[in-house]
């Protein structure tokens, strides 16, 4: 009995925002099942009274001084954007609506709305 089903894999892929083909789902179901079976060996290890160890070196996340310092210039930060509109990263419309200006696109009006072309 596998530890995970194909339906669970599909649901998980949705949560992880990964589009998987049917072949990938089938292969993933087998792979994850085998790996989960292997890691089940950990159940034999007694970890009662053991504190979780999240990091190798204890550190206390020191806060730096709250001073203004130069940051990445806007053009540098946007230089790798696959799609850019002025000072913004461009994404498909988030809020559905008939006309422009309802997508909360920061003043870019309708210019960023609608479906993307297939380029």
């Amino acid at each position, binding site marked *: 009995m596998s530890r995970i089903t194909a339906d669970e894999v599909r649901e998980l892929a949705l949560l992880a*925002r990964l*589009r998987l083909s049917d072949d990938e789902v089938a292969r993933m179901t087998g792979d994850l099942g085998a790996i989960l079976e292997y*890691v089940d060996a*950990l159940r034999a*290890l007694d970890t009662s009274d053991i504190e979780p*160890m999240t990091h190798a*070196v204890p550190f206390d996340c020191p806060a730096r001084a709250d001073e203004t310092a130069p940051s990445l210039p806007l053009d540098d930060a946007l230089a790798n*954007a696959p799609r850019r509109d002025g000072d913004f990263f461009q994404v*498909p419309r988030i809020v559905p609506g008939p006309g422009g200006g309802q997508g909360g696109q920061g003043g870019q009006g309708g210019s960023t709305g609608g479906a*993307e072309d297939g380029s």
Partner: protein
Amino acid sequence: MTVDARGATAVAIADKVRAGTWLARDVVEHYLERIARLDGALGCYLLVDAEGARRRADAVDAARKAGRDPGALAGVPLGIKDIFCTRGVETTCASAILRGFKPPYESTATARLAAAGGVMLGKLNMDEFAMGSSNENSSVKPVRNPWSTEHVPGGSSGGSAAAVAASLCAGSIGTDTGGSIRQPAALCGVVGVKPTYGLVSRYGVIAFASSLDHPGPFGRTVEDAAALLEAMAGPDPLDATSIPQPVGAYREAARAGRAGATPLAGVRLGVPDEYFQPGMDSEVEAAVRAALDELARAGATLVKVSLPNTKYAIATYYLICTAEASSNLARYDGVKYGHRAAGVSSLEELYTKTRGEGFGREPKRRIMLGAYVLRAGYYEAYYGKALRARRKLADDFSAAFTKCDAIITPTSPVPAFKFGERMGDPLQMYLADVLTVAPNLAGIPAVSQPCGFTKSGLPIGLQTIGPALGEQICFRVASAYEARTDWHTRRPPESNAS
């Protein structure tokens, strides 16, 4: 001037460039010529930045001529794993999802190497997002082992190890999350160092599993690796997990290992039975046992130690690293940089299609496994359990280090395997890391160095593990072994690579 750079170590190159005997520019031209001639068959480089390398070498030569200190690594030609962000130079982690990405900033490690006079030749191939133990997961091309091109170089820093072995750079850097520096170093017959967690800044290193990612150096000799580590290490305000420790005298420790007939007098070396298990290749075991004898002749006392939870290390490691990876890889969404799927009509579709197209098989597998073990209802049984097991594994080392100063083990239970041999079974591939993952979980330093060859001519690796911030004892032990053997002087056949 004849530059015999192939025969020279990194520190010898720096000495000659600093003295003005060699020009950094000539050294770089020598290496660029070798890359052009030999790398087609090996696939170490994803990108060769010849113009940038010439410019950097000229700057080193100009600094020396002007009477300025050109740096401890003056003119040393370096290869950089393609996981380190290099400003304006494409950085992809060997993934299609980052194709075309030109970082707007420089990683601290590469900035420090450059400040020390090191000359970056280009970006080195790797398993996609540092996930793999054979380099077969590169989305671009496989790296071939210079000792036998039918065999893998190990991974994930396979390009970094193979490039040093084939003298396509004088030193290189990589990252080690579960063995990704040490295992390829072992399979390619070079020295690889995973330092203490936080000793080398992770700023500008593309994240795989943040609590386990350790940047570190590769060299042909222990002193070369020590020299690179000295240049890279040290506190960095840009990395909150960087530790506030001054940089140690690593080169001096390496030199101490070569001094006198018994440089290891008074040093206790632990040998854990759990690292010599059935299934280990008999030639690997014989070479490591012989190395232990050699270390004893160098003055060390060998003591039995026990690391009783070793059998849980792989399961613990894969639960933690996949959980962290699934979070870290959430940032690749087609919006800010890299690949973006075409023809989508919603943001949701942009995410799922971009990620489905952009990630290869292994990152997908790890994202999915990580998402599974972090799910509500499973979190405590898997991820929570693994965090507790991690402490037990770290405690094993703490207990062992009350009885010894360093621990000696094989680096990999097997020499390099053939292409395709393990690709069909991800679990078999994960088990390649069985002797290297525990020091990552504990955050302690470990060095791999060559300690022999199989009858068929494949390198074998010896691992020296130290306590936290025990880099110096590791370098001293490794250097003592190196001084008494000649494995590190052997070079792969070039006919194989042309």
